[in-house]
């Protein structure tokens, strides 16, 4: 292994890294890509980004296999399933390609060089806490998610549920799925407001869920009654926050994840240096209209372009 342009040799050499995201065209991963690209540029490495069209192991596996075939010096991957991606990642490791897990993880995480993950359960908890605060700890709340079987959003939903359990006056209406289509998310919102006119809060578990929830609330003219908490903090979401369509954003730190992933990989390639800790958990930032302009919050807003 390690052939091609790699080698464990000197500093001047340009390492070829491949980042495989969970799904292409997703703001979160795009921002992660930005962070990774910036770090790669700084360290003189060459980064290729790949990813499947659907967040699924069946779609991601062929891409990982092909990427291995190109024999990069290291692979950064956001595995789409804890169990399913073990074997494909193992085959990369078997070929002596170091693997850094970014954002999500796998059951046998020890085979990876490191894993830098957002704790999505924790993120969901923060969303729950934030929503509880927004609605004065009482009233009906709803979750809108992508579709069942996607680990990241499932965990956010789980964290959210855990958090609101603590509030006896909050009535949880359950989770609805929008197939990652904001139009469907909007219609779920308007329909729910028909049956539960006293709905107080919605948690949109990803970009499109939140976007659709905000639109649905506005369409029903209940902007003042219903609080919307959404995951991620892309520029359009920040706009929604400013305009009041959404009330709270749970920003992950994808830029950070990408940046650190590349650094860990390059460090290892250059100096054979394993990271101090194999497990790095990045945090979340709760963004509201009030703290939006704070510099430490601004830092974590996603970027549309690098």
């Amino acid at each position, binding site marked *: 292994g390690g052939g091609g342009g790699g080698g464990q040799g000197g500093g001047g050499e340009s390492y070829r890294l491949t980042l495989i995201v969970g*799904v*292409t*065209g*997703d*703001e979160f991963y*795009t921002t992660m890509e930005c962070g990774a690209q910036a770090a790669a540029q700084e360290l003189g490495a060459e980064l290729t980004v790949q990813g499947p*069209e659907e967040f699924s192991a069946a779609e991601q596996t062929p891409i990982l296999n092909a990427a291995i075939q190109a024999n990069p010096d290291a692979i950064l991957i956001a595995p789409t399933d804890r169990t399913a991606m073990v074997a494909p990642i193992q085959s990369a490791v078997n070929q002596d390609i170091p693997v850094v897990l970014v954002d999500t993880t796998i059951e046998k995480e020890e085979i990876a060089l490191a894993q830098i993950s957002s704790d999505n359960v924790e993120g969901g908890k923060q969303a729950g806490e934030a929503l509880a605060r927004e609605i004065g700890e009482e009233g009906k709340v709803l979750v809108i998610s992508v579709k*069942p079987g996607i680990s990241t959003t499932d965990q956010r939903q789980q964290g959210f549920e855990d958090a609101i359990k603590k509030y006896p006056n909050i009535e949880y*209406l*359950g*989770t*609805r*799925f929008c*197939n*990652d*289509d*904001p*139009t*469907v998310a*909007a*219609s*779920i919102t*308007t*329909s*729910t407001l*028909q*049956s539960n*006119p006293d709905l107080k809060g919605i948690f949109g578990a990803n*970009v*499109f869920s939140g*976007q*659709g929830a905000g*639109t*649905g609330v*506005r*369409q*029903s003219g209940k902007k003042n009654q219903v609080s919307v908490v959404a995951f991620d903090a*892309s*520029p*359009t979401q*920040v*706009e*929604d926050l*400013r*305009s009041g*369509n959404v009330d709270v954003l749970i920003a992950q730190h994808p830029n950070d994840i990408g940046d650190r992933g590349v650094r860990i990989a390059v460090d290892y390639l250059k100096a054979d240096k394993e990271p101090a800790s194999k497990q790095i958990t990045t945090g979340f930032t709760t963004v509201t209209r009030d703290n939006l302009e704070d510099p430490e919050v601004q830092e974590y807003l*996603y970027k*549309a*372009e690098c």
Partner: protein
Amino acid sequence: MLSRLAGSAFIFLILAGLLIAFSILEGRAFLSGDNFLNIAVDASELLLLAVGVTFVIITAGIDLSVGSILVLSSVIAAQTMVALSGTDQQVQNFTYPNQAVGIPVGIAAGLLTGLVCGFINGLLVTKLRLTPFIATLGTLGVFLGTAQILSGGTNVPYVPPAIQTHVSTRQLLGFLPVPIAIGLVVVGVAILALHRTQFGRYTYAIGSNAEAARRVGIDVDRHLLKVYTLSGFLAGLAGIIDVARFNTASVGAHTLDNLAAISAAVIGGTSLFGGIGSIVGSVVGTFIPAVLRNGFVIHGVQPFWQEVAIGIVLILAVFIDQRRRSAEERM
């Protein structure tokens, strides 16, 4: 042609039946003007796609690329609006000194994009003689990829909110949201065009027997070019509505819109083998799943069960409609 209308009138009854059932079950929660307006606004984009696809399917074609055209049009519309409405600095601070120019030009750009995409589909089908399935499967990827390249794969930010207030939230005559108004106009024009004009006549003739159409002197290729362009244009229009509703261009969404639009047409009685179909049917075919989804959410049906229930109701609705149709034919 009369029996065709009678046929679509019957599937209309099935939709009415669903509406009545949910009204009885849910009372005011379902049966309210607000709810119906919301259902209609939410379905407005799909409705436009379904109308365009209906024309295509009646010619015995298919258009898998409508969702991608929608996305590409919305990206180009949104980016044009952002670029023309102010400097980078200005728009990032949400001030849009030139939005009076930017928004209309953006809308025009989006519509033009849809038109051009549809035209490309038409060229592939008529000049390269590709089967429509392959042609539009190919452009599905090309258009979507282009949208992703242009937008960097993210939703387009900083779209002037005025488009939202002027198009999506604005209510004509004090109650009619603009997306519904657009939908009504498009459906009205489409009904006339399909059932009352030469354009519609040729559409049916080509789907019924393309060789016969050619032999009586119809320029089949030219007509197909128009039909695919129309479908693209309507997808572009849906893209504009999308931008107006969400104040951004949603690049990652709309992957399943093609299947949804084709389904709407087929539920409404349009034959995938061409020559048979109606706009009214496709309208009903758009609303049956929309109403079911709305009613089930209001009723509080568990999401997993919803999938099952919608599938079953769909099968039953079309089954009843078909029985009725063949009974009519026997009369």
